[in-house]
Every structure is written in C-alpha cells, then in structure tokens.
C-alpha cells in the first residue's frame, strides 16, 4: 500500500524536514502533516506543521482528524553529543511509546509505521561478525545510554508490530550518516585537521549519504515492506582509508588503555567524542545492506562516494558559509501562504491549487472554476492571468451565459488576445 496521508514526527529534525520536502513532490500523497515541539527548520510547500510534542492524546487527535494512514517516526536521537542523556531517553523511549500509542487504538486509520533507527543497535565489540545482518540480535548488552535507548525503542516498536498485525511496521537501521546538511559527531571528527584514531586500531566504517537516508525513508512509504532493514551504503572503509579520501592525515593519538579518560580530556579541549563512538573507533562496524536492495532500493552513493562528497563540501564550506540566509519559520507568513485567497502562485495554497487545476467543469457546462459564482469580479480578474487560453474561452462562454458582466468579458477577451499574441511570437 502506498501512503496517501502521512504524519511525520520530528518535523523540525533534519530528517523530518527533508522527508517532508521529498514527499511534497509526490502528487499521489494527499496530505503531509508534521508534528514537533520546535518549528520546522526547512522551507515547506504544503506540509502542515502542528506544534505537538509526543503527548499521545494530542497526537491521537491529529491522527484521527486527518485520517492518517502512515506515520513516519524520524525523531530518534542516535548521537549522544546532541543532547543530554535524560532528554535523549525521554525522546527515544518515552516518545516512541507515545507515538505508537497514538497509532494504536480501536478503529485507527494507521496502516503503516516507518521507524528510523540506527545500526548502533548492533553495538561494536571485539567478537562481532564483519557484517551484521538483520536477523542477528545484539550479541552483547548495550554499553552506553544511547544504545540502551535505541534497543528499548526498537523493542517497543517490535511489540507494537506483534500486537497490530494489520499495520505494516518497517524499521530502518541507518549506518553513520555523512553529508553537507547533517551535523554528527563523526563529521565533527572528520573536520579536524587530522583524523584522531586509537593507537593500533584501524576500524572498519560504513556510511550512508544523507540523500540516501531521505530516499530510503520515502521508499518505505511507497511500498509494503514490513520488517527490519539495514540501510548502509556499499563498501566498508578502514578509518585510515577515510582519512585518505578526505585528504587528511590520521593521528593515532588516543591511547588504547584509558581511552575513555582520554576522550574526557579531548571533550574539555573541544573535540567531542561521545561514548558510543569510542567503541566504534576501536572495533568498527559493517552491516549487510543487501535486504533493502532486494526490496528494490537503490543507493545513490557508495561509502567511498559519500566520504568524497563530504570532502568536497568541507573544502567549499568556508567559501559558501555566509551567502545563504537560514530559513526561519514564521507562523503568520506560512498561514498566509497556505490559506489566503490572495495568494496566486505556488502549490502550498489549496485554493490556488484548485483554481489552477484544469477542472472538470470545462466540458460539463458548469462553471469552469470552482465556486465561480461566489467570486467577486476583482477576484476573477486576479485569477485570469493564471489560466490557459482554452480555460479562458470556456470561462468567457460561461460568463456570457450566466452573468454577462461586461467588465469581466472585456478582461477575459484581452487575456485571450495576450496569450495568443505571445503564442504567435514566442520569445517576444
């Protein structure tokens, strides 16, 4: 089942925003509703933002009112450097439970849940397989709070899937993300003049490009893919190889004993090495990405290409930094753009979209524009410029037959003449 009415949780996170943008381009998606505590961080055309956190009673009302059929949960915090561990726990464990509770009630319209998880699920240990596949559980208990959260969150999603057989539940486990738009602890590490390493270790790393993350989430909304899938690009790189691709040296400055203490010192000096990264810096991790490929997903980047793309971005970043004004959400502006009858362009305003769509009224003899009879003449005139000549002629006929307002007929005639003149002399 392809999704029609989608709820995105965590709209203000990078992933929520990017996914909403991607879904907006798909005409088969009727409604996109995004919820979050904070305002969206990217410009959105037709996505509706509702300021709701993860209170399940409120979420449920949104789900019910909008007849949501798909919930995409992009909230999961997988980098402990971004927030305090208490907030991460609140968001990851309690938040997930609440979102699921908002989907599961008697007569719920939700038929699909897509959950964004992380390959931190598997951890990083000495006796790991070289490629984790989805059927393997985590071989050792979690070591860091963030890993514990991810496991608990996934467990509640799996429990939800067990209890609601009529809902397709997809869990996507993403490898370390690289790209110009995201900001992760690993990217911070790679931005240093030299890539720090633990002395005597050269861990294997697998990445996924940010665009592939968005496409992977979108892919799951378009198909029926119940189950767990790893999402990681082809190619597992050694950390020394990553440093080489970035054009940097590697610096084996972290000791192999007392690495955690050294990381604490490094944190004081401004190099953020979160605890879940320490295990990865030592043992690395690779995952088997073939199941999602077998489910029809195609990656745009290999791990190597993702690193090269990051390297390019790092070289350009200092030049481009100040040119673009960051987007700021202004509630009044967004509402004006979406709902005002005076907005004449853009797909975000449903009134405009309805006016611009070639209506069935053309042939049936009804008004060529919805609610035409209710429009005031100045509104009709403002509408004329956006219509095709064919629609204009139909409009003229209708106006002649029903209201015969001379000013309007004159305006329509001149619009037809203009469009024909521009057609006769293209480029004029």
């Amino acid at each position: 089942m392809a999704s029609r009415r989608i709820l995105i949780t965590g709209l203000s996170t990078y992933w929520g925003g990017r996914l909403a943008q991607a879904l907006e381009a798909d005409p088969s998606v009727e409604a996109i509703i995004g919820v979050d505590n904070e305002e969206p961080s990217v410009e959105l055309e037709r996505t509706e933002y509702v300021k709701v956190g993860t209170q399940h009673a409120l979420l449920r009302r949104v789900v019910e009112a909008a007849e949501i059929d798909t919930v995409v949960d992009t909230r999961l915090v997988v980098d402990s450097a971004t927030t305090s561990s208490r907030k991460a726990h609140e968001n990851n464990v309690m938040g997930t439970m609440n979102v699921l509770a908002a989907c599961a009630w008697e007569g719920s319209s939700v038929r699909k849940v897509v959950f964004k998880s992380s390959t931190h699920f598997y951890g990083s240990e000495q006796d790991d397989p070289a490629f984790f596949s989805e059927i393997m559980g985590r071989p050792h208990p979690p070591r860091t709070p963030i890993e514990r959260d991810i496991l608990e969150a996934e467990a509640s999603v799996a429990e939800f899937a067990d209890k609601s057989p009529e809902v397709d539940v997809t869990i996507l486990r993403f490898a370390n993300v690289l790209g110009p738009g995201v900001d992760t602890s690993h990217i911070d590490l790679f931005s240093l003049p030299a890539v720090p390493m633990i002395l005597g270790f050269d861990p294997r790393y697998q990445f996924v490009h940010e665009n592939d993350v968005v496409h992977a989430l979108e892919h799951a909304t378009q198909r029926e893919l119940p189950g767990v899938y790893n999402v990681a690009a082809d190619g597992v790189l050694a950390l020394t190889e990553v440093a080489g691709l970035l054009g940097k040296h590697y610096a084996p400055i972290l000791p192999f004993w007392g690495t955690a203490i050294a990381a604490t010192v490094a944190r004081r000096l401004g190099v953020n090495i979160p605890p879940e990264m320490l295990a990865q810096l030592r043992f690395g991790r690779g995952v088997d990405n073939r199941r999602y490929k077998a489910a029809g997903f195609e990656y745009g980047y290999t791990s190597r290409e993702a690193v090269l793309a990051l390297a390019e971005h790092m070289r350009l970043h200092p030049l481009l930094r100040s040119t673009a004004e960051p987007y700021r959400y202004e509630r009044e502006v967004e509402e004006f753009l979406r709902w005002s009858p005076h907005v004449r362009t853009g797909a975000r305003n449903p009134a405009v979209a309805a006016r611009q769509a070639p209506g069935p009224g053309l042939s049936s003899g009804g008004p060529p524009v919805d609610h035409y009879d209710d429009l005031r003449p100045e509104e009709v005139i403002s509408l004329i410029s956006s219509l095709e000549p064919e629609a204009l002629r139909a409009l003229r006929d209708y106006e002649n037959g029903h209201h015969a307002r001379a000013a309007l007929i004159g305006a329509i005639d001149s619009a037809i003449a203009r469009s024909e003149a521009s057609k006769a002399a293209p480029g004029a």
Partner: protein
Amino acid sequence: MPGLPVRRSDDLRRYLPGVEPERRLTDWGRSERVEGLMDRTLIEFYYRYWFRAEVEGIENVPGAGGALLVSNHSGALPPDAAMIGKAIREEHAHPRPLNITVEHFFKGYPGFSMLIPKMGCVAAHPANVHRLLYDEGQLVLVFPEGRKGTEKLYKDRYRLRRFGRGGFVEAAMRARTPIVPVCVVGAEEAQPVFAQLKLLKKLTGLLYAPLTPTFPHLGPLGLVGYLPAKLKLRFLEPIHFAEEGMHEDKGLVQTTAHEVRARIQEGLFDMVAKRESVWFG
C-alpha cells in the same frame, strides 16, 4: 525481544556490492598493498629459501567457487597459514586469495587489530565464514584445533587436538561448499614450543606466551624466528556436500568432523613416516 519479521531471501548474492577499482582495500579490510609487500618479502623468503616448501595435491583445491580448507595447526606464531596461502598463489593453476580465519582476540589487541585484516585474516565468526564461502565463493582456511593446537607442546607434535564442536563442517554444509583437508608437516619443528609461560601471558595480555628457541628472550621479533625445517604441504581429496540442509543433522556434522580429523591425522602420520630428515625432507 519479540522479533519483527525479517524478509528472508535465500539468495542475496546478486546484491553484493560491486568492486570499486579505485579502492585498495576490500570490504573485509584486506589490503592489496600490505599483502603484496609481505608476499614479496617475508613470506617469499620463508616459503622458498627457509622452509623450501614442497606441495602435493594442489589440484584438490577448486579453481573457482567457495571451498573450506581445514588444516592442522602448530607453532607459537604459526607459519602454516601463510605458507598454505603462498602455495595456492604459487602452485595453483588459478591462483586466488585465501581468507585465514583467526581468533577474535586479534581484533582487540592493538597493532594486530590494524595489521591482521590487511593481510587477509578474518575473525572466525560463523557469519563471516558463511558469507565468504556461500555469498562470495572464496577460499577460507580454518584451524579447527584453534588455540589448543598452537598451545600444544613439542612432545605432542603431530597429534591432532579435538576438532571443536564441528562448526567448520556445519559452515561448509550450509554453504554447500567442499572441504579440502590439508596436512602440514615441518611447522612443529620450525618453532617447537617447550613450555607455556603463564606469568608472561598475564603480563602481556597475549593469547599465550610460549617458550620457543627464540621467544621471549629475543623479544617480540622472536615470534617470527623459525628454525629451517623442511615444510611439506599435502592437500587431500575434497569432501563434497551437495545436499541442502545437511547442517541441521547434528549427528552427521559430528561424524564428518571426525572423518576430516582422521584423514588429516592419517596424512600426517604417513608424511612423518616417509620423512627422512626434519631439515632436508
């Protein structure tokens, strides 16, 4: 944790990642450069001049597709694995890389962790062996004696230890690839282990600390100090497992493991009996 269904697809082989020619490392961390350098220098020297290796039955190693090589194991830092790999590169009609399974220990020990995968060693995890054999169709070498083989003292030479729990047979059956038993004679004399030094083992955190003619008194380099014994390798007839689902029969797995062990043991005794001199063959 209640499991979510994982879509099981029998054959994911066509979704294996393609080769990126610009890369010098494989996804397993194997480095052409490091391996080539070792092959041209140290391994070449030992294979050709120090051990003067002699190879029999190399045609028993299949030229294509997966195969599991099973060998006896000995010596403190055993030279057998590198020599078997070298023999396939040198003598085989279709030389190809050999993946050597090693203990997980190496991944956790600084230095080894960096170097070992680059030389073509992978951790002896069943999932790794299966992927190599079934999905990638590669050659994998296992030492079912494991650490017990390398710990054994000189007085127990050429007497095979227990073959684990038959995990290697299970792996071959599941991947439906043949097992090629390999006998190595000479490695026991090249690096005789006289005793195990428990205190040193504790101090260094190593897997074991043997007392050999060169170790520990010559330092870490003493681990690659071998005596110039004549090395003989014999590849035995492969054992095929064509049927599906054989690995689920635990009895069959055990019987096959015993049989492989018996064949290697028999081969070893035969080779030792025919050997006239430890140093000259």
